[in-house]
């Protein structure tokens, strides 16, 4: 036990968690802590806006696997992180948010810069805690890291009133925290694994859908082995991209609203469907009637509340996906001869793949731009995306070899996530090139983060698929509202090249895939934050598309 102030205890608690970076924006309610940070080795990355700082922490968390930490002041500082927390929470990303608060004696009085951030964030965090006494700070911080990074990961917030930062107390730093109501490590039930294995071994057309949980648990090796053993093709949700290499003969790619042909045609044919760490989001399933009408469903998830939430399964395995798949694989191996390739299946997948890849091959179409980016990026590199048409083209056409290469805001679909997330990701992996596949609308939402990329030495490359419109919404209006365009025109953009230059970054206008590739390669070679502005056709649609409310097989392949 040592006597120290709450602020000192806070810094020490973060150091004990191994925190390297704090992303945030400062303010009055957090000054005591900022003062003590001067004595720490933790690197503070000051942001332009708290939303960006939260996305940085999120990008850091997704890439490193360790909690990303955002620290902000009370009131507007705290409310500005809400979008970032919801984004992280919906994609199960471990983000810890630390908010200053007015002194306890003033809480509840509508004091200057007081907001009820506990109430405001209760619905977008896994857990939140308000510190009531200085002595609680070490335990509260330890708890936040523990809860955010175990079980189904997520966002956790700790609200720290200013007087608890300055009060002194005898501090105890626990090595471990326990909760009566939180037991994240669940062993998959062996009986259920046995049933799953039996179903799969007998299946004639088994199909696997992998989601973010398959990646979070590091189950991809096991998953691929099981798929090969069963000759079961593997589709993924948006969050599951990377669970299987894009060029694997059994890979079906993205499933759902903008899923690839191979996924959306083959998933509904399944007689047994193994769903691993995915949550049957409406964007992945399309209309539930057309989803997998004849399939018996096996669902694996660490979060028991996801089981039978949207779709009923007949075998349910709660627990770590890697352990569960390993268990199933062993039991399948005892029941079934495996090894030979299902040539017919592989051929069909190949044909559908060719169809998906040739829907639009005009020189600067979305898919062609994505393929050019892929050609220019070295194998060991990371891309993130913003949200809109460009994101869907990236999800469909940016080939990956495995997990850890592609990150996106899936569940919340937060425009503006990409640029700051890329910076956070770069902080986690400074050795790898980082690129954000962005849209003009998305980029404009958080472009101010370029200043941080340049200033703090986290060079990132942003390619803007600049169609001059809020393209995804325009597409819906084109297809489902008889071209009645409304609210999709952006106010005139600044010149993105000059904008980049004004931040001290490089700006390039690229009007061919060749120029795109050259600019990307140069930005990586010179380690220069670079914005590459690519003029695109505002009328192009993302295909395939399943119209909302329709089944997977009701694919639109083009036309309008």
């Amino acid at each position, binding site marked *: 036990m040592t006597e120290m102030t709450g602020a000192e205890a806070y810094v020490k608690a973060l150091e004990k968690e191994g925190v390297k970076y704090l992303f945030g924006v400062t303010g009055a309610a957090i000054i005591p802590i900022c003062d003590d940070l001067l004595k720490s080795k933790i690197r503070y990355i000051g942001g332009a806006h708290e939303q960006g700082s939260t996305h940085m922490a999120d990008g850091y968390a997704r890439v490193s696997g360790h909690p990303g930490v955002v620290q902000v002041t009370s009131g507007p500082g705290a409310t500005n992180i809400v979008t970032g927390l919801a984004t992280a929470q919906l994609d199960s990303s471990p983000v810890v948010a630390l908010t200053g608060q007015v002194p306890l004696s003033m809480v509840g009085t509508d004091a200057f810069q007081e907001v009820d951030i*506990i*109430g405001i964030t*209760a*619905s977008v965090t*896994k*857990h939140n805690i*308000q510190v*009531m006494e200085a002595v609680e700070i070490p335990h509260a911080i330890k708890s936040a890291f523990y*809860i955010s990074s175990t079980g189904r990961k997520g966002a956790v917030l700790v609200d720290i009133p200013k007087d608890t930062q300055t009060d002194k107390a005898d501090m105890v730093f626990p090595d471990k925290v326990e*909760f*009566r*109501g*939180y037991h994240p490590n669940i062993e998959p039930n062996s009986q259920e694994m046995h049933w799953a294995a039996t179903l799969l071994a007998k299946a004639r057309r088994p199909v696997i859908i992998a989601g973010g949980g398959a990646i979070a648990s590091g189950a991809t090796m096991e998953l691929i082995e099981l798929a090969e053993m069963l000759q079961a093709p593997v589709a993924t949700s948006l969050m599951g991209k990377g669970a299987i290499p894009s060029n694997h003969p059994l890979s079906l790619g993205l499933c759902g609203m903008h899923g690839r042909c191979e996924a959306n045609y083959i998933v509904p044919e399944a007689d047994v469907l193994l769903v691993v760490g995915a949550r049957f989001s409406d964007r992945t399933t399309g209309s539930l009637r057309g989803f997998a009408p004849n399939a018996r469903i096996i669902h694996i998830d660490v*979060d*028991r*509340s996801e*089981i*039978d*939430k949207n779709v*009923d399964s007949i075998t349910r395995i709660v627990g770590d996906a890697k352990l569960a798949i390993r268990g199933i694989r062993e039991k399948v191996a005892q029941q079934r001869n495996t090894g030979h390739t299902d040539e017919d299946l592989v051929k069909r997948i190949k044909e559908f793949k060719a169809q998906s890849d040739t829907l639009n091959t005009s020189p600067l179409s979305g898919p062609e731009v994505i393929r050019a980016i892929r050609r220019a990026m070295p194998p060991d590199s990371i891309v993130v995306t913003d949200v809109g048409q460009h994101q869907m083209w990236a999800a469909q056409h940016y080939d990956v070899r495995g997990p850890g290469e592609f990150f996106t805001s899936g569940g919340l679909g937060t425009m503006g996530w990409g640029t700051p997330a890329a910076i956070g990701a770069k902080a986690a992996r400074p050795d790898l090139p980082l690129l954000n596949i962005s849209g003009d609308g998305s980029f404009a939402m958080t472009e101010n983060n370029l200043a941080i990329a340049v200033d703090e030495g986290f060079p990132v490359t942003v390619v803007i698929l600049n169609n001059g419109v809020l393209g995804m919404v325009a597409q819906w209006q084109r297809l489902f509202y008889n071209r009645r365009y409304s609210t999709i025109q952006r106010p005139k953009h600044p010149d993105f090249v000059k904008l980049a230059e004004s931040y001290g970054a490089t700006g390039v206008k690229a009007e061919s895939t060749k120029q795109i590739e050259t600019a990307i390669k140069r930005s990586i070679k010179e380690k220069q934050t670079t914005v590459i502005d690519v003029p695109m056709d505002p009328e192009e649609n993302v295909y395939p598309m399943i119209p909302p409310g329709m089944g997977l097989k009701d694919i639109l392949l083009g036309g309008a």
Partner: protein
Amino acid sequence: MPLHTVSFLVENKPGVLFKVANLFRRRGYNIQSLTVGPVEGSPLSRMTVVVDAESRILNQIVEQLDKMVDVVKVKRLDPLRTLSRELLLIKMKTSDPIARIEAVNTVNAYHGLILDVDPDILIAEVTGPTDEIDEFLKRIGPIGIEEMSRTGAAAIERGNVKLA
């Protein structure tokens, strides 16, 4: 839709009731009643909620509650073994002597107690399962209800089982 009773133990600390209520609001679960009270000799409180839900939603309610860090244990009570009681305090206008006699008789028939007598007003306490209280209120309705306060159901299962 059928009514179900779910009991759960939560950490007895500030903010937990808010988080539970917030969960019900945000996921659109339909609460008929919610009761809370501390558990003797423990840092926990017991909450009992009666919900109107079909089985998928009921299952979700249990799982979503269970997922909360501050919720320690959740159980959907078995309707065949559940003893459930709520308390009603009721104020009746009984200036008319016949109404007064009828009110006293009805309270007695439901094993209630008269708590306070005033020239024009009777106050009674009635406990029982929710449907019995509903029935009592239907009978007393024509006599004239001035004011009432119901607690919502507290519930516990028969036999050697417990929520702990």
